[in-house]
């Protein structure tokens, strides 16, 4: 899909997603370095640049803070740099972001952050636009893929004009929207690294320097307000009702206005910070009512309220403050039509849908998020529960902290074993907290290989040095799998020098470190029993590569012996219920193995109390590898 990114010339029209537009923008702007940490919806930018061998350096960092640290180094050496992360990642990076925003930059530095209004992927529903206010740095909020490209290019120029970082903010829907984009020219910049000593700018030594840096950051924002004036577009039509809209809400508004043949006074806001105060004021002076449309928090709206307060004839503001537009979830053209009806005082007609049974919601199929067929994590959690039962522990009463990534699916049926999911690497510190609070032992921490390198290492050091009795279970599937198999620092044959988990764990003082293959169920259960009863911090690495990443070459012929399978009526707990493996499907009252899906992991063979699931080696055959 992204074959155009490198080569296509200026003026050509292509279909690009928001993420592809950012990647193209990096190339058009002559960027030298792109870094970040995988996190939906921004992950594809670095993936595309790497795949296309774009002639610039693009690489994943160990976490978002290190990413922005490294990016700042490139910028201060005079090179154009983009750093990408999801909104949660910006929280991790924020310490450096604020400090660099105060110091200012040299080479253009753009922070591309993706928010997730409506929480399509999980994590806190937060509005990262607040970071622009917090850091006193401008933030551009494009409304469609073409604007994503244009604003990426513009952001680098703006960053170098004002001498500070610029945020580029997308949302899940925008990043996943593929639209027509006219490409721009590729600029080739000849940049050579240099860095000059400037203590006042590059250190935080002393009150005078820091206050001066604060002043400088505020001055940069004022400059940006003048420079970005043309990005915010005011259309005055003389209507009594006006609308101020930002990002996708603007797109939805335009569609509603066109469909209902309305020509209202309206302002498109493309800069979340600094808000275009002048144009907001000019709009407010001509209307009696104003509707403010933005996703998540009332950020533009608060500026609108502050400008309204300065007027003698104060228009009525409709938006989040009065509860009309929700702060939770995202927007749609249907919602915008509904909200616009309120200040207009007429109900804008909706489109006739088909009349169907009211029961349709109940008919929708619930799809349990579970491990893929053959996933090593399924075996790991299965073995953990077996080990607890063997030790006389109640799996429903033993606290197991979970972490971010595929490993957290242990919280769902049928395992219901992970109790918490907070932030990257949090499982360790949280478990330490539970132990210190006096919770009954064992308290178990589980996490993946990605989260281990990202943020768990200091927390394990903390548990070691405070002498906790903590089993740390690391489910190592060789990649950051959930975001699309990015290499970690433990990936075998990966892009980075490999520092295996066990080496790190020993180095930071774990009492014992053991690596076990979770497909060997008996051995895994024994390893669990040993760490659950040991004192000190004991690390168990359950290592097997993600199955979804591997091409299956062999079908080991796992099949159900119909003569032995007692069926749903006769079985206490069927393999479908106990394992939730997508490769085991219902066949009348019995079960069968779907050979197109089965990865031959053998867990069902181990599980079946009636020994009805068997390998049939006569069926051993080469698989047709997926196309």
């Amino acid at each position, binding site marked *: 899909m992204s074959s155009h990114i490198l080569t296509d010339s200026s003026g050509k029209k292509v279909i690009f997603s928001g993420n592809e537009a950012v990647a193209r923008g990096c190339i058009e702007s002559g960027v030298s370095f792109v870094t970040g940490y995988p996190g939906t919806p921004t992950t594809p930018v670095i993936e595309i640049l790497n795949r296309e061998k774009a002639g610039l350096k693009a690489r994943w960092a160990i976490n978002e803070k290190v990413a922005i640290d490294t990016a700042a180094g490139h910028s201060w050496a005079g090179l154009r740099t983009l750093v990408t992360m999801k909104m949660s990642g910006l929280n991790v990076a924020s310490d450096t972001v604020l400090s660099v925003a105060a110091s200012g930059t040299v080479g253009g530095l753009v922070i591309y952050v993706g928010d997730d209004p409506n929480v399509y992927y999980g994590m806190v529903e937060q509005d990262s636009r607040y970071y622009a206010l917090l850091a006193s740095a401008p933030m551009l909020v494009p409304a469609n893929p073409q604007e994503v490209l244009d604003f990426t290019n513009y952001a680098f120029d703006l960053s170098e004009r004002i001498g500070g970082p610029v945020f580029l903010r997308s949302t899940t829907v925008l990043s996943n929207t593929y639209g027509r984009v006219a490409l721009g020219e590729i600029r080739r910049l000849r940049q050579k690294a240099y860095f000059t000593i400037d203590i006042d700018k590059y250190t935080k030594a002393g009150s005078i320097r820091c206050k001066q840096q604060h002043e400088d950051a505020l001055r940069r924002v004022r400059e940006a307000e003048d420079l970005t004036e043309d990005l915010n577009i005011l259309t005055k039509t003389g209507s009594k009702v006006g609308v101020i809209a930002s990002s996708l809400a603007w797109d939805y508004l335009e569609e509603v206005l066109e469909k209902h043949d309305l020509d209202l006074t309206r302002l498109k806001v493309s800069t979340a910070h600094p808000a275009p105060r002048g144009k907001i004021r000019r709009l407010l002076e001509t209307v009696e009512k104003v509707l403010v449309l933005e996703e998540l928090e009332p950020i533009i709206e608060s500026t609108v309220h502050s400008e309204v307060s300065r007027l003698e004839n104060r228009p009525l503001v409709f938006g989040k403050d009065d509860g009309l537009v929700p702060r939770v979830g995202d927007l749609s053209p249907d919602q915008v039509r509904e909200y616009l009806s309120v200040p207009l005082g007429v109900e804008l007609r909706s489109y006739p*849908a088909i009349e*169907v049974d009211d029961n349709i919601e109940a008919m929708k199929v619930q799809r349990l998020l579970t491990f893929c067929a053959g996933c090593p994590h399924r075996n790991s959690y299965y073995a953990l529960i077996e080990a607890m039962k063997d030790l006389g522990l109640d799996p429903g009463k033993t606290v197991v902290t979970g972490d971010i990534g595929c490993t957290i699916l242990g919280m769902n049926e049928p395992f219901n074993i992970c109790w918490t999911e907070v932030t990257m690497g949090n499982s360790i510190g949280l478990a330490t907290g539970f132990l210190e609070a006096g919770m009954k032992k064992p308290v178990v921490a589980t996490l993946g290989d990605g989260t281990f390198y990202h943020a768990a290492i200091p927390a394990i050091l903390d548990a070691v040095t405070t002498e906790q009795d903590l089993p740390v279970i690391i489910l190592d599937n060789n990649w950051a799998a959930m975001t699309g198999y990015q290499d970690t620092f433990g990936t075998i044959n990966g892009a980075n020098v490999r520092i295996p988990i066990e080496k790190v764990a020993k180095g930071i003082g774990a009492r014992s470190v053991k690596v076990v293959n979770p497909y060997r169920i008996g051995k895994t259960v024994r390893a669990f029993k040993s760490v659950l009863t040991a004192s000190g911090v004991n690390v168990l690495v359950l290592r097997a590569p993600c199955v979804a990443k591997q091409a299956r070459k062999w079908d080991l012929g796992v099949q159900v012996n119909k003569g032995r399978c007692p069926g749903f009526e006769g079985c206490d707990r069927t393999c479908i219920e106990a394992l939730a493996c997508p490769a085991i499907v219902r066949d009348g009252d019995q079960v069968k193995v779907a050979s197109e899906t089965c990865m031959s992991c053998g867990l069902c063979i181990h599980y079946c109390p009636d020994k009805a699931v068997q390998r049939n080696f006569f069926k051993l055959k080469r698989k047709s590898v997926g196309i």
Partner: protein
Amino acid sequence: MEFNIVAAGIGGQGIVLFSEVLSKAMLAEGMNASFYVHSGLAQLGGSVRSHIRSGGRICPKISHGCADIILSLEMAEILHAVPYVKREGTVIISEAMRIPYHSAMDPSRYPTKETLDKLFQDARIKAVFIPSEDIARNAGHVQTANIVMLGALVATSNVVETESVVTVIGSCMDQNAQVNVEAFWKGYEFITGQDYV
């Protein structure tokens, strides 16, 4: 002219490729085109939807009651697209089923073809069922079921010319182009009932 399609399916069925081929064919014919993929954690078998649009000014999301066609690559997933279809719209449903955990234990938690057919009949709207995975296996590979559905869509709507689709498939899928072109024509002729030359 504005034309809206809501396609539904689950992760791994190739809804992005389906949308990409269609919108690129639209673009090649000089139309404005866009699609928006609503996915969530679809990699793990969750629901995916795509809003595919062509015509004048387009925002990513299609309004309720505005889709000319709703289509699903997995039978039950069509339910997610129902609010979008116009009264005079068309419904195209793949007979491919992915039975999830709770439905496997309790088969009443997965709708039958008859239930779905009746739902659309009662709404006085035509639903076409396509055995897309059987057709795809015949065409050469079960994974081309998404392109079989694209053939059915093009045959039903004439939203783009068949040649444009074939050209796009040829340009964006190097070694698998042939099997996908075959799948496209098989889906197309399933609707038209005609052998292609």
